[in-house]
């Protein structure tokens, strides 16, 4: 009996086991559900927690930029000649493809071989594309004209030259075998509208080293097209490596060894801009490393504020040690030379005063702060202990220090001289105001005057003012060639101790009944020009390197007050009025400062204050 019972229980046990497995599987599934559900429950946004410092991520804003670009489209089927030319013009305004493959599809094979878009870029405005209205049904040839006003020319290096006159270009089209119009003859280079220029180009201030060794940089403004896929820093550095533009070549050099190429620019850790060059960069001589670094940070200027820049060579540390620096490490290389906080000066009671923070001024120590010797047109040097140059006794330019008891010393002798102007090398410049053909320009260092050789464009006129730019690379003059006053810009070339002015361009053309009264450098690239014409006085900021007035920085003048002297520093404009000219006693002249934000003048000093001066420029 008992064996049977035992097998019976065993059988029951065996039968129950699969049921147990079933149960287990169900339990396991339930656990899986619970786990996943609890996991999902944890991902809600927290509503409490401890405060933390947020890590900054600035990399994105610096390297990315917002812009609109033109997209080239292929020629449409059966398009009219005008549409072909329009499509071609749109395609040339696209910088996606450096070979302009799409634009060349609008040309006949022959024309696309001959056309060289890199040669020159001309900018026009108010362009109109039209073709003589006639039946095109059976025509094999057609002409389309592009008419407009010339605005400027952009050279192969990106140099901007203003242009005047009309643009009248003819496109000759032929009907190809497949019945499609194609351009067979076209003007040379690219023709872009000013809208294209505004859209596709950006001005960039490149910094180069002056040919004379000095801790400072010279600005060269170029217009570079925005190339998609290439960040602004990369565009700037590549253009920097390509060297200066034609207008300034010879006056500046690049510290980058020739043959240096950029590999890539990346941002690491949110605050380090890594600039990776090819190995040629390592051949830079030791005394040029600082200049090279300064060129790099100052060319990138606004992009690397707060960033650390690191130079690498093919992904490895520069010369095995690394090269990390900041813009603030190279502040003394500032191409503007003076900062917006520069000390301003003015004349009052025949003495030179230093502007105080709260307004008004104190007389300077030394000869310039005393009335013993009468002087005019003072200029202040950029030294730590400024020196003053001025016209004294009408027989030359005299210089004095700002230590008590200093005396005037004559540096340049001459009867009719323009007001002196300092450059950053410690030299004083002045030109003789004389008949055309006899103009001479002097430059004096440590009391020793030298003649500066000038080209005939400057010699054949009557100079009334000469201002050396603060970086010492350019000269601005007011000149009268008999047709009215003009402003001309020349480049200063230094070969050893020989100094030559060349590459003279006219900045402000002579206009009927307009007189240029004063000029002053505001910063490295901009010149303040005070003129008086039919509509009264006008004070404009001209971009020296582009040759156009900067519309965004136009200065509003008070119609009641007549200005007679100006001075500029970055973001600052000072003007002096001399309402009581010739009257004895305490004068009524005032020195005013202009606020660009509020667009209004405020008084800085009164009671006969005049002739405001900033160091250099």
């Amino acid at each position, binding site marked *: 009996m*008992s*064996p049977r*019972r*035992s*097998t019976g*229980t*065993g059988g029951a*046990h065996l039968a*129950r*086991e699969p049921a*147990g*497995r079933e149960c*287990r*599987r169900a339990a*396991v*599934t339930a656990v*899986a*559900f619970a*786990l*996943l559900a609890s*996991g*999902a429950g944890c991902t809600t946004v927290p509503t409490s927690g401890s405060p933390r410092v947020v890590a900054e991520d600035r990399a*994105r804003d610096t390297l*990315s*930029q*917002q*812009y*609109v*670009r*033109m*997209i*080239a*489209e292929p020629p*449409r089927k059966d*398009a009219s000649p*005008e*549409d072909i030319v*329009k*499509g071609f*013009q*749109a395609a040339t305004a696209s910088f*996606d493809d450096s070979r302009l493959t799409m634009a060349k599809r609008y040309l006949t094979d022959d024309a696309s071989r001959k056309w060289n878009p890199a040669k020159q870029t001309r900018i026009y*405005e*108010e*362009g*109109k*594309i*039209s073709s003589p*209205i006639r039946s095109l049904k059976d025509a094999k040839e057609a002409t389309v004209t*592009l008419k*407009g006003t010339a605005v400027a020319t952009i050279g192969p290096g990106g140099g901007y030259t203003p242009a005047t006159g009309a643009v009248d270009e003819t496109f000759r089209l032929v009907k190809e075998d497949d019945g499609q119009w194609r351009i067979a003859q076209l003007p040379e280079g690219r023709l872009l*509208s*000013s*809208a294209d220029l*505004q*859209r596709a180009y950006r001005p960039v201030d490149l910094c180069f080293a002056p040919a004379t060794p000095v801790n400072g940089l010279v600005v060269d403004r170029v217009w570079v097209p925005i190339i*998609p*896929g*290439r960040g602004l820093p990369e565009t700037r550095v590549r253009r920097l490596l390509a060297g200066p533009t034609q207008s300034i070549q010879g006056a500046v050099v690049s510290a980058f060894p020739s043959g240096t190429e950029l590999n890539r620019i990346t941002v690491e850790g949110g605050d380090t801009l890594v600039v990776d060059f090819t190995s040629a960069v390592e051949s830079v001589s030791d005394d040029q490393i600082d200049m090279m670094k300064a060129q790099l940070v100052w060319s990138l200027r606004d992009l690397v504020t707060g960033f650390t820049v690191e130079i690498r060579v093919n992904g490895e540390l520069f010369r095995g040690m690394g090269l990390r620096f900041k813009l603030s490490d190279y502040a003394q290389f500032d191409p503007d030379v003076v900062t917006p906080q520069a000390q301003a000066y003015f004349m009052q009671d025949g003495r030179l005063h230093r502007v105080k923070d709260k307004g008004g001024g104190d007389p300077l120590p030394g000869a310039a702060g005393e009335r013993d010797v009468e002087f005019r047109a003072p200029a202040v040097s950029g030294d730590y202990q400024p020196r003053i140059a001025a016209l004294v006794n009408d027989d030359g330019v005299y210089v004095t220090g700002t230590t008590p008891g200093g005396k005037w010393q004559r540096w340049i002798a001459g009867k009719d001289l323009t007001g002196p102007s300092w450059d950053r090398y410690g030299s004083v410049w002045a030109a003789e105001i004389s008949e055309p053909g006899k103009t001479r320009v002097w430059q004096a260092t440590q009391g020793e005057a030298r003649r500066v050789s000038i080209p005939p464009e400057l010699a054949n006129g009557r100079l009334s003012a000469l201002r050396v730019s603060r970086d010492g690379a350019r000269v601005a003059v007011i000149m009268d060639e008999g047709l009215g006053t003009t402003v001309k810009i020349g480049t200063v070339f230094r070969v050893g101790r020989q100094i030559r002015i060349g590459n003279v361009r006219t900045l402000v053309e002579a206009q009927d009944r307009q007189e240029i009264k004063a000029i002053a450098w505001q910063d490295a690239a901009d010149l303040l020009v005070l003129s008086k014409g039919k509509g009264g006085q006008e004070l404009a900021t001209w971009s020296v390197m582009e040759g156009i007035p900067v519309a965004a920085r136009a200065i509003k003048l008070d119609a009641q007050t007549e200005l007679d002297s100006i001075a500029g520093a970055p973001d600052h404009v000072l003007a002096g009025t001399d309402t009581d000219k010739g009257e004895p006693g305490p004068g009524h002249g005032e020195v005013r400062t202009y606020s660009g934000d509020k667009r209004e003048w405020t008084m800085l000093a009164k009671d006969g204050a005049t002739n405001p001066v900033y160091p250099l420029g």
Partner: protein
Amino acid sequence: MPASAARSRRRTPGQIARGARRRARRAAGRLRRSWRGSLQFRVVTSTLVLSMAVVVVLGVFLMQSITASVLQGALQSAREETQANIATASGYLVPPPPDMTDALPDGTEGEAGDPVGKAAQALVDRSGGRYDIVTFNESKVGQRRATGGIDPASVPEALRAKVLRSDALVEQPAKLRYVGDKQPVSGIVIGARINGTYEIYHLFPLGEVDTTLLAVQRMLILAGVVLVLLLAGIASLVTRQVVTPVRLARQAAERLAAGRLEERLKVRGEDDLARLAASFNEMASNLALKIHQLEELSQVQRQFVSDVSHELRTPLTTVRMAADLLYESREDFDPAAARSAELMQNQLERFESMLADLLEISRHDAGAATLDLEPADMRDVVLRAVGDSEALAERQATRFELRLPSEPCVAEVDSRRVERILRNLLFNAIEHGEGREIVVTLGADRDAVAVAVRDHGVGLKPGEETMVFDRFWRADPSRARTIGGTGLGLAISREDAVLHGGWLQAWGSPGEGSQFRLSLPRVAGAPLRGSPLPLVPPEVEMRRSWRGHGTPVLSPAVGAISEVGVGVRETADAGGFDVA
């Protein structure tokens, strides 16, 4: 070695494929064996598969709902932004009055006339880099604009076609490509048509959403895999608790089956498995008890048979002596009494041989039978046995045909017992041979010798091949024993053959006669692997194969021609089992 290397180098793709297939088949076989052989493996595998299915379904569902909710926010803000931008842009892109376009020769717009550029600039100033804009105009040349570095080819053609047909906002997910970037970013493109001809597309990169979703997906997959593995581990652990005692029980049952009746299981706890162990133990002890009782009983019976035989001998001897006396003086009796004396004499002889056989078989049963081994030429043994049977054969008018090898064929045997076996076989053949010829064949090979005795009598019915060796078995109970065999001869012969480590097997077929084969190893104690002679007579076999079909009973015998040993041993084992 170089030869094999060369061969392995010269293996063709076909060979490699075949090798791979063979290996796969072997692995599948192993897997199937594990599946059928291991409960644990089965439980773990099914848990793995089922939980994987559950986790996959759950994961896909979760992923979809997460994707939907994450994307929903991004898409919603993208749509709202696009709507606002389109309102702005349509302010710039006012269509010129129709008469104006006719009146003026179609001229390029100056700065004032680049509305699409201005619109794009206004929108991109607002975008702050979150999205890019592409514009197209199919009816006017030179109106294509893009912002930032977006590649205008990122706008799908299908979307453009749809935008050109409808006035509503149309959106489509797309891969956004940027000039100079090789890696496309996934994103959404929302397009609209403004003032009939301008198409404006907003391209929102969803790279961050993509990254988030990828991270979530990776987490889900990881969690799923861990979960499934954990479940499998748990299932393995849990089944082990059940399987281990079951395995122990199985091992114990195997040992029990092998005859170790003292095998018992450890009883731990009070659960189902403990009860199983207790029941098993109870069963085992009951079995042991019963087997012991049966053994004792059979022992008693054997002893009884032996004792009875012995006890019968003494009175039998007396009876014999008296019967001999009566027999010798039978001529003095009347014919009826003389006939009785003859009958008594005959039956007494038979009784005596039966008693001898009973004693012999009880010796075998008691394990008391011993072999008296010595090398002997089997030809002599056969000849002696035939000589003993010749008298009987003559009486039955039966002829012997002897097929003996010419060389001596020596084997280590107990020749007395072998002779007895052969005598039994010959008597049996004469009895059932119906007077036809009896063939005795002696065969030998390196390891074994065999003697086959073939008769051409009625033969054996299927299934009788093993029954012939049973004690007191008769093919036809109604038939009288003509020769007066005791019914134990074949049984004793079988016991003798087994004692030699040999086989005694029978073949028979109705109408074709039968054949008995005795196979013995040449060296005593050596295992017997095959027999030098076939069990089925070759002529029968040949006739069968000529007819082209074999009966199901004989199909194993067909194989036996090539692999005699295997087929024969199976029969022998089965026979041996029956005897035990």
